[in-house]
């Protein structure tokens, strides 16, 4: 694609005008189309503090949009840990069931597939084009209860970049505003005049502001493609002392590379303290923005994470210009999706991950996740172990590929055989028989394969717990019976 070789904004706009209609299958959506569905999902979340338990089931209502081929698009937030999915078509009392086909936790969207092949017979699929009209007015199409389709007005203000609903990767979103009260649970947004789909409303706050997933990102997801991730974080470079230190002149632009994810697109390409001057021939200003010819000032992440066909970088090499050790260097980067292996402490949404646990002699070991900490209520930051909190704040991402997960003793199930350790809780496990512990899987294997007569745990603050190897299974059996726990581990 020659787009990134073009430097002139004028050429870019002309090109957009020429190729726009080729990509844009602009099919309008009208209220009689039978495209908007009501989805009722029953979910049952796991218990992060007592990971062998599940919480009470809850029901989540959301809007579903029929996208053809028996598939319905809904917000991912609605289907995490689902137990049953029911879909109702407009003006129909019959309820159809569906299963989850695919989900993207960063985009916050999921695709459901009808179980009954006849379910979609009279439904008209919605096609998401690659064009969006900014700024402009739009309509929000939602279906509530047994009533007919409702339409409310919304103003689409601008395109920006941010992570969605606690996802990990920044993606484009449209900022919207409305005087009406909206739910932000997957309603379809179409432009007012041509009724061309513009996106899906996934968030709406009390200040009447909301966020819409743009249609080109939805199109990309429906096509089954993954989303690229730049693999680094940056820091603005706006003070003269720092700029001078890195050898930049007064008028130079650029931001500082502050964090690199191991195994990511940037790993081995960029270095900490590189000053990123240009991406795909676009100059990056000291706050991290570039001038997009159509959308105005945009965060540089757009040049890596965007999936708009017109200027998507996906599956292409991206040219970078950096200032390294006070010298300009030209680089090329292949874009890959976010490497989950770089995440040391899972944060944000649950990404369908059930909390893992391993019980040894009635001691419950877990891997640290943000969900474990936030389960301690509104005041969780004051309630949890300060060291766990600190690690969660500063060490979510691995600093090198060798760093492991944080394994900790979350609680001791009180039995007479482990009474010496009943009060221990929220302690980070450092070693087992002298070996550094990096994951629950490793701990489980080490205990199973140990030839030592003793299993010797040491926590970060020197607290020790010692059992004879044969005691482990005996105490586990006692704990399972006494506390009604099904298994020694859940992985």
């Amino acid at each position, binding site marked *: 694609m020659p787009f990134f070789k073009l430097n002139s904004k004028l050429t870019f706009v002309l090109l957009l005008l020429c190729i726009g209609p080729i990509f844009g299958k602009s099919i309008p959506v009208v209220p009689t189309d039978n495209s908007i569905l009501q989805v009722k999902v029953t979910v049952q979340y796991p218990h992060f503090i007592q990971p062998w338990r599940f919480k009470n089931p809850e029901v989540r209502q959301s809007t579903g949009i029929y996208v053809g081929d028996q598939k319905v698009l809904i917000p991912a937030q609605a289907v995490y840990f689902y137990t049953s999915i029911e879909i109702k078509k407009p003006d129909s009392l019959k309820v159809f069931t569906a299963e989850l086909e695919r989900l993207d936790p960063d985009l916050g969207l999921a695709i459901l597939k009808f179980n009954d092949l006849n379910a979609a017979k009279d439904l008209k699929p919605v096609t998401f084009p690659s064009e969006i009209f900014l700024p402009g007015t739009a309509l929000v199409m939602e279906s509530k209860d047994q009533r007919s389709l409702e339409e409310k007005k919304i103003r689409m203000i601008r395109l920006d970049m941010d992570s969605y609903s606690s996802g990990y990767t920044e993606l484009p979103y449209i900022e919207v505003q409305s005087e009406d009260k909206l739910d932000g649970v997957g309603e379809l947004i179409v432009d007012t005049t041509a009724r061309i789909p513009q996106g899906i409303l996934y968030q709406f706050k009390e200040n009447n502001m909301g966020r819409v997933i743009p249609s080109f990102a939805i199109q990309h997801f429906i096509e089954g493609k993954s989303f690229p991730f730049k693999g680094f974080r940056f820091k*603005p470079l706006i003070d003269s*002392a720092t700029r001078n230190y890195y050898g930049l002149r007064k008028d130079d632009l650029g931001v500082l590379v502050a964090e690199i994810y191991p195994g990511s697109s940037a790993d081995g390409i960029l270095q900490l303290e590189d000053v990123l001057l240009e991406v795909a021939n676009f100059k990056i200003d000291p706050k991290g923005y570039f001038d997009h010819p159509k959308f105005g000032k945009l965060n540089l992440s757009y040049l890596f994470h965007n999936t708009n066909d017109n200027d998507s970088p996906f599956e292409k090499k991206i040219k970078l210009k950096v200032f390294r050790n006070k010298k300009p260097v030209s680089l090329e980067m292949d874009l890959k999706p976010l490497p989950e292996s770089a995440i040391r402490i899972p944060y944000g949404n649950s990404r369908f991950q059930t909390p893992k646990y391993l019980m040894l002699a009635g001691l419950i070991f877990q891997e640290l996740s943000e969900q474990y900490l936030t389960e301690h209520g509104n005041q969780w930051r004051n309630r949890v172990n300060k*060291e766990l909190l600190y690690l969660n704040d500063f*060490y979510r991402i691995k*600093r090198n590929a060798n760093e492991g997960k944080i394994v900790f003793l979350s609680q001791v199930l009180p039995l007479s055989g482990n009474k010496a350790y009943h009060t221990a809780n929220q302690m980070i496990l450092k070693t087992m028989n002298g070996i550094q512990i990096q994951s629950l899987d490793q701990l489980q294997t080490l205990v199973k394969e140990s030839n030592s007569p003793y299993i010797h745990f040491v926590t970060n603050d020197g607290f020790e717990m010692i059992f004879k190897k044969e005691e482990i299974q005996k105490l586990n059996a006692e704990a399972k019976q006494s506390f009604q726990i099904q298994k020694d581990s859940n992985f």
Partner: protein
Amino acid sequence: MPAISEKKAVTPNIMDSNKLMQKQKKILHYPSLFASTILFFISLFLIPLGAEESRQSIDEIRKSVVQIRVFSQAKDPFSPWMSSGISASTGSGFLISKNRILTNAHVVSNAKFMETQRNNQTEWYELKVLFIAHDCDLALLEVSDPEFYNDSNYLELGTLPELASPVDIVGYPIGGNKISVSRGIVSRIEQSTYAHSQIDSHLVVQVDAAINPGNSGGPAIQNGKVVGVAFQASTKGENIGYIIPTAVIQHFLKDIEDGIYHGYVELGIQTQSSFSESHRQFYGIPNTEEGVFVTKVLSQGSADGHLKPGDYLTAIDGRKIGRNGNLLESNSIDFLEIVDNKFAGEEIQFDLIRDKKKMKVKFAAKKMPQMENQRARYGMNYDYLVFGGLVFQTVNRDLLEAWSKNGQTQGGSLLVYRFYDATTLSVGQSEDVVLYRKLPHPINSNSDFYLNMVVESLNGVRVKNLNHLKELVESSKEKTLRIQFYGIQLPMIMDREEAERADLEIKKSYHLTGN
């Protein structure tokens, strides 16, 4: 400043001097119900006698109890260049020798001017502090005018009162200028945290008598002798007060005999109980031996260099230790109480098992300097450094509380975690230095990223303490200062000359004086 610090309903997660070493245990358990019932009835029979005796001595007691009026002003730890408002409060005290007045440290903390008066006196006499001990909440005062002592009396110290025995709390509560006496029963004797320093843990006597603001520093009297000093109340229930027993008072008085208050020593270890047979067998501990395992030895504590993690402590000064850490002879006193009663330089002797061999280890008791920042502090200036409008200070309890009151509850997990974990200091470092606020100026508009972070190094030199940071900043000839913080990979860059120029404007704009 309240004349009395209320005891917290929920003990905060603090680095208690004893909790630091291991979970706090009660020094004395309740006696059996039977024993307490007997004691209660005995005390009932004794009350008329005791009351008679109290009546006989009440005039003498009146002559020895004083009211103290204090005008105080503290420094603001969040804005250490500023002083707080001036406040007035009252407390009590009593003569313990011809011209020495004992009271609580919290009664006279941050005092700018103090005066006192005895019962039936009309004049107020100026007071001065001779010794103040914040770690055990006691202070010794003196009046320079000999007229104050005319027709006075002083009280003698008694012993630890029995459970269920009556005590009279004497003082000047709730602002009244007439002496007040209220009677309570000793309901519990235990080791507990002293609210004044919020960290030190010593013996306390709980009584079911109201101890109100103004009572602080007054004597608790039994059979005409002082059995304690009233000092704090419980927020858990009504009419529960606490007195500092005479053992603690005597420790204080002995400490100041050489004219200096040295303070309490710390053993500086963490231990865990040895109830687990597997645990004991792993370390080869014979079944006949009781004791506790050492899990951690804190740097600069008394035990540093003498005890090791994995040591099994079986006796202290020849007194055997049980599996729960209490002395076997009573099974109610924590073995750390033996250390609590010692003075700096006195010997501590342990019998222990190390690497399956029995041995004896002796070493001198000493104070732990890093405890000072853990303790609430009074009557002092907070040292700080302003550079480029960025304010650096030592991480200490007062700053942490002020920081919390200023709504800084998010994002400070590094600061808080390192404060509560005494072992995070690296070799050669004596305290953490935090960039905790900025005085906004264009030069520091980009520094929010580093707020509430602890300084690790400056231009590659590891920062040991605030003074060291000041020295490094002042002596640097580099154009650029590169400050590295714990947990952040990128350094903060400052231009030395620009920052110095900005500081002249900042100090003027924000009315910074001194330092």
